[in-house]
């Protein structure tokens, strides 16, 4: 039996303001096995991104438990959470979120800054990651000098540079045309197939979703089976 790398048990998330409570997720159970690639689909506002943020430890559930690698995440300090994210997870965002002041290679190095690594080692790993996404010739460019597809490839290089076990991609092709979107999908499926990185991807796009091993659908904050 393969080990479940991500485990959600009756997870709910409610956003409260003074007047109203919005239930974003309600009683979600989900298990993701190591080396799996799955898509989360559903209409806008159904809670897909909330789910991804919870898995990525960017947010905490109102109720229920989340476990990564069998370890239940509860009452962890800021430092411990940061270190878990740094070790285990790589994020790819719809709008890339590259830092415009930093060169491509410096953007890719960001996750390594928070590890105990020397400058040369960081540079070496960043160049390797950029090579993997086919951007070796753009290392000294600034993000604004690149096309959208290239920027997303930089973002993927940043996500994989720390060799995380899990990549969480929030609509990674949402801002790209279909050709560039295909390229990104190829890189993600390649990572999954070649080095067994677990990939959890949120998408609107049925065709892209069908290229992953499993599709999970959400509607109104609940999983639809």
């Amino acid at each position, binding site marked *: 039996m393969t080990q479940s790398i991500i485990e959600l048990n009756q997870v709910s998330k409610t956003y409260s303001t003074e007047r109203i409570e919005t239930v974003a997720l309600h009683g979600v159970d989900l298990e993701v096995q190591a080396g799996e690639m799955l898509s989360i689909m559903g209409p806008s506002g159904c809670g897909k991104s909330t789910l991804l943020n919870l898995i990525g430890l*960017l947010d905490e559930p109102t109720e229920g438990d989340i476990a990564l690698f069998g370890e239940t995440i509860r009452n962890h300090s800021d430092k411990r959470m940061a270190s878990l*994210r740094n070790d285990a997870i790589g994020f790819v965002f719809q709008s890339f979120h*590259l830092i415009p002041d930093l060169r491509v290679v410096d953007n890719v190095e960001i996750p390594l800054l928070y590890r105990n690594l020397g400058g040369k080692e960081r540079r070496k790993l960043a160049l390797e990651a950029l090579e993997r996404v086919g951007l070796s010739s753009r290392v000294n460019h600034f993000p604004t000098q690149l096309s959208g597809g290239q920027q997303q490839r930089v973002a993927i290089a940043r996500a994989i540079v720390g060799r995380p076990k899990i990549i969480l991609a929030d609509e990674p092709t949402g801002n790209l045309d279909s050709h560039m979107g295909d390229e990104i999908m190829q890189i993600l499926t390649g990572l999954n197939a070649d080095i067994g990185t677990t990939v959890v991807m949120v998408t609107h796009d049925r065709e892209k979703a069908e290229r992953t091993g499993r599709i999970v659908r959400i509607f109104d904050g609940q999983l639809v089976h």
Partner: protein
Amino acid sequence: MFKNYLVTAYKVLLRRKFFSFVNLFGIAITLAVLTVIVTMLQNYVKPIGAESRSPHFLAVRNVRLTNEERTSSSTWNAGYRFLERHVLNLETPDMIGFYSSGSEGTVFIDGTKLSPTVVRTDANFWKILDYEFISGRPIQADDETEGRTVAVLNESMQSEIFGDQDAVGRRFTLNGRPFEVVGVVEDEPEMRMHSSGEIWVPHSSTADQNYRNEWIGGFTALLYAEDPNRLPIIRDEFVDGLAYFEYDDPEQYQRVESTADTKFEMLVRDFMNSRFEEDSKAGLFLLAMFGAMIAFMFLPTINLINLNISRILERASEIGVRKAFGAPTTALVAQFLVENLVLSLLGGVIGFFLGVAFLNLIEASGLIAYANFEIDLVVFGAALFMMIIFGLISGVYPALKMARMHPVAALRRA
């Protein structure tokens, strides 16, 4: 890691050039003004030039005579009679010298009138102060006792009166009387309270000897001790002696008030209007100065805090990304503090050089005659310290606020 902070700091500085300029300008001007003020005060007070032995003496300058009811009084600098009765007879000082406040003299050179500042001194004055002689000798005891018309000039006055030649042994006419130059000293800045002047003559060289009967005149006495720790004893003896005051006409004045002060205390008394009070209020003065500096630094600090906070929104994406990829709050706080320190130090360095430039301008302008400001390491260190405090104060709050931002909120806002 640190290098990365610096690179980001540099990039952030370039990103919004106008904001950065406003920030740097505020910091630079503030520190420039502080540097100028501190340097000027320090040059006033510190023992340099001819006043290098100032930690070894107290000065008696202001004297006030009053009747018992204090309804009538006479106030100015010490007169010669006051010196004779209450100063020159003190037993605790190792040496006592005195000099008059500078008065405007008249010298004609080829039909052009010069108005040099003339100071009358005794012989001990030259032993207590440490003038740098270019040639000749100081005023000596026999010059004083015999009332010789001899003079010491400063370098600038020598060249004004005698051109390039050595003036020692030569004569010139001062206030219509012939004087012989016996010595030439280096110029002393006008702001040195005891040593500034252009021509020095024996106090006894005046045609009119009536000053010897005056209680209130233009003199300042210097009470010198080899061991500076003995200055409080000297002060006590002087103050105690004031109780035995007897005026020529006992009906007119019954009391005398005066103080024996260090250079710093003299400066403070002028500022704090505490001329005859027992306490010079030096502590209060320092506190007030410190408070004023803090207040003065407060404005650009607030400005910087405000600008920094407004940049949070601009950098939300960066904060979100760094957090998502594992930056702990402490690392982000450190990053923002480094950015702020870089900005403050840069502003500080610009400010320091602006201050130096401004001081040079004051020197060159002749606003303060013979001004020669020395910026020493203490001032530099103080300025550096101020810059760092500045950077920290203006950086901590925004840094905490930025770093505590929730990663999801930060990413969503971008």
